[in-house]
């Protein structure tokens, strides 16, 4: 028994050394100059992600050059070129869309500067470090939860369920993945229970609340019997509320007229709405984990002298539902913000 201790001890020391070499090398060297280019911080997710990345990097003593491209991919390209001209050691971007991300990654790699893409992946994931949530899986988990409730309702009443999806901007692979996850569940249930779901209504949001509002108003007016709703991003829940409430459809679960609702992101508003019973589930992107993955892999690349690191790092995500809310809320970044009073600010 005692003989085992030296082996365990040596193993631990070796593991600690390896970990230090991998993750500590960058921190041990001179402060780095990291360029962080992002688009508008319109949603809680981006605000929290921006804060996590910039504060962590600065706390580690690195210089962070921040650039906001204001939803203009050409401006972001110009800003990344400015960063390259300033001789930065690494670049992190949140691109406007998957296509422009490919161009910007190419620009950085041509200049031999490692680049990481946070959460909004390029259409070609073979270049650059890409950190992304598994949108299909997280969506499927959230929609599955409300589909089960819909099945119970359909079996009890025999009335066909009318689903609606608020789609994101389809240049963004996140939006494509979320749409795919939604349709996977709907199609699976319709195969197993023919006639359970009507053809889903697709409402375009272009990741813009005003566009979503106008299109959702029109869709709900034309289809007042919608009773199953999935939004591709939680930031649209206030918009959805403003459409459903005047029509008497913003009702908590357990009461007649409740619209089964799910989203994706896991923001503070979604946390509050699940707690209050208006929203049934949301697919959660583990924001802090993704931010940490992005920074660690980029710093590691800089430390190792990798100029063109190419790797996809996946956040599997999970679904926070009315069923698991009591014990799993602490795992959701939005709930942490909510409990810290983020929505009161």
């Amino acid at each position, binding site marked *: 028994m005692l003989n085992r201790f030296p082996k365990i001890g040596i193993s631990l020391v070796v593991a600690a050394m390896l970990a230090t070499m991998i993750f500590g090398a960058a921190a041990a060297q001179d402060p780095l100059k990291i360029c962080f280019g992002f688009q*508008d911080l319109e949603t809680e997710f981006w605000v929290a992600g921006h804060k996590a990345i910039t504060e962590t990097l600065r706390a580690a003593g690195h210089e962070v*050059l*921040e*650039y*906001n*491209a*204001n*939803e*203009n*991919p*050409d401006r972001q*390209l*110009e*800003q990344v*070129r*400015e960063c*390259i*001209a*300033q001789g930065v050691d690494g670049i992190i971007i949140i691109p406007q*869309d998957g*296509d*422009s991300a*490919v*161009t910007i990654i*190419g620009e950085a790699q*041509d*200049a*031999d*500067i490692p680049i990481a893409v946070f959460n909004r992946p390029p*259409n070609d994931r073979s270049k650059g470090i890409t950190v992304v949530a598994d949108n299909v899986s997280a969506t499927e988990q959230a929609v599955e939860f409300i589909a089960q409730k819909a099945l119970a309702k359909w079996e009890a009443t025999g009335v066909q369920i009318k689903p609606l999806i608020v789609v994101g*901007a*389809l*240049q963004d692979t996140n939006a*494509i993945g979320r749409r795919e996850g939604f349709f996977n569940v709907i199609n699976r249930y319709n195969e197993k229970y023919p006639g359970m779901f009507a053809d889903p209504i697709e409402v*375009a949001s*272009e990741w813009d609340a005003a566009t979503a509002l106008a299109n959702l108003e029109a869709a709900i007016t034309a289809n007042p019997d919608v009773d199953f709703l999935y939004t591709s991003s939680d930031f649209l829940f206030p918009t959805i509320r403003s459409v459903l409430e005047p029509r008497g459809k913003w009702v908590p679960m357990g009461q007649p007229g409740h619209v089964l609702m799910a989203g994706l992101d896991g923001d503070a508003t979604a946390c509050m709405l699940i707690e209050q019973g208006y929203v049934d589930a949301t697919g959660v992107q583990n924001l802090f984990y993704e931010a940490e993955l992005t920074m660690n892999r980029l710093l590691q690349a800089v430390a190792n002298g990798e100029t063109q690191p190419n790797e996809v790092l996946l956040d599997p995500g999970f679904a926070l539902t009315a069923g698991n809310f009591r014990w799993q809320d602490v795992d959701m970044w939005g709930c942490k913000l909510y409990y810290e009073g983020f929505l009161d600010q």
Partner: protein
Amino acid sequence: MSTLDDRLNPAAVRIMPVAKAEAASRRAERPLLAFLRRVLLSDYFILYLTIFFFVVASIFFPTLSAPGNIANQLSNMWPLLAVAVGQTFVLILGGIDLSVGSIMAVTSVVGALFITQTLDAPTFDKSPLWGTLISDQGGILAGSPNATLIGVIVMLLLGTLIGLWNGFAITRFRMAPFMVTLVSMIFFSALALWLTASRNISGLPEDFLVLGKGDIISVYLGPKLTPDIARRDILPMVTYPFVIAVGLAVVAQFILSRTVFGRQMFSIGTNRRASEVSGVPSRRVMTLVYGFSGFCAAVSAVLYSARLEIGRPSLGDGLLMDIIGAAVIGGTSLFGGKGSIRGTFFGVAFFVLLLNILNAMRLSPFVIDAIKGLVILVAALLDITRTRLINREQRS
């Protein structure tokens, strides 16, 4: 020899030499003021201001004067210059073209749809062009050796046609340019989104991409310590966008300053009614000028699309302030009858430098936009002041 004024007002003969002498003595007493006055009234005022800003800002932000940064800022100038040249023509007429951004968007996507080499069926099968002009094999010119040439011609023709339509509607129906181009802006923005089902179009051919960022002459500044020179250390000196945009600007300046057409533009911008009475074919001139503005927007769309490597249905969004701002800063009057391509060139340089400085100051984009707006306002006020001073000097 006495002037006409002298003959009409004999008192002036006695007074003017005294006034001139007093003015001369005032200038002699205040050489700095006289110098500032000369600078302010110079045609190169914005250029002087740009150089001054550059030198001062470089003291605080040394990266501004790094060769790499200068090369970047120059590359940022060319697409903006191309579209600002067309807007300058329209402003000289006393008009305005709000539709340039949407012309850029629609020409960008139409050109890209023609030449793209691959399209993803689940993404694009909602486009109304699916199955006719586009398929999963790409656009109808995919694989053709002349794809880029024909694609660019299509873009330029389309931009020109939209511009000609604007001009036709303004002159034929006597509608306000603001209204006509506003409607065009809305319509063609929506058309670009509809044609692409709101998606970007990638997979553009390499020879098209060269138009946006290809180097003709590159330089390396510094010692050669290793056999290979890193790509980031090679600076583009003469690029395709430079040749295209500057070529367009030179032609435009020639039209403006050396042709009857150019003089007719100034005449219409100064007083359309009077120029019509004098026999200037105002309808034809105005229609052609709006057509030229559309052409310039299409040239800009080629440059932007090629450097972004995508046809983008929202290309040109938010660019209008930069375009009009660059022309106004360059001394083009919003009331018409005044302006030059040289001034617009300086205005574009100033605008790009301003953005570079504001970025270096790490300001939020909202503050940057507010400052850009203020700069345009100051430029317009400065222009009024300069015009007054010039008129006063001419009178005295």
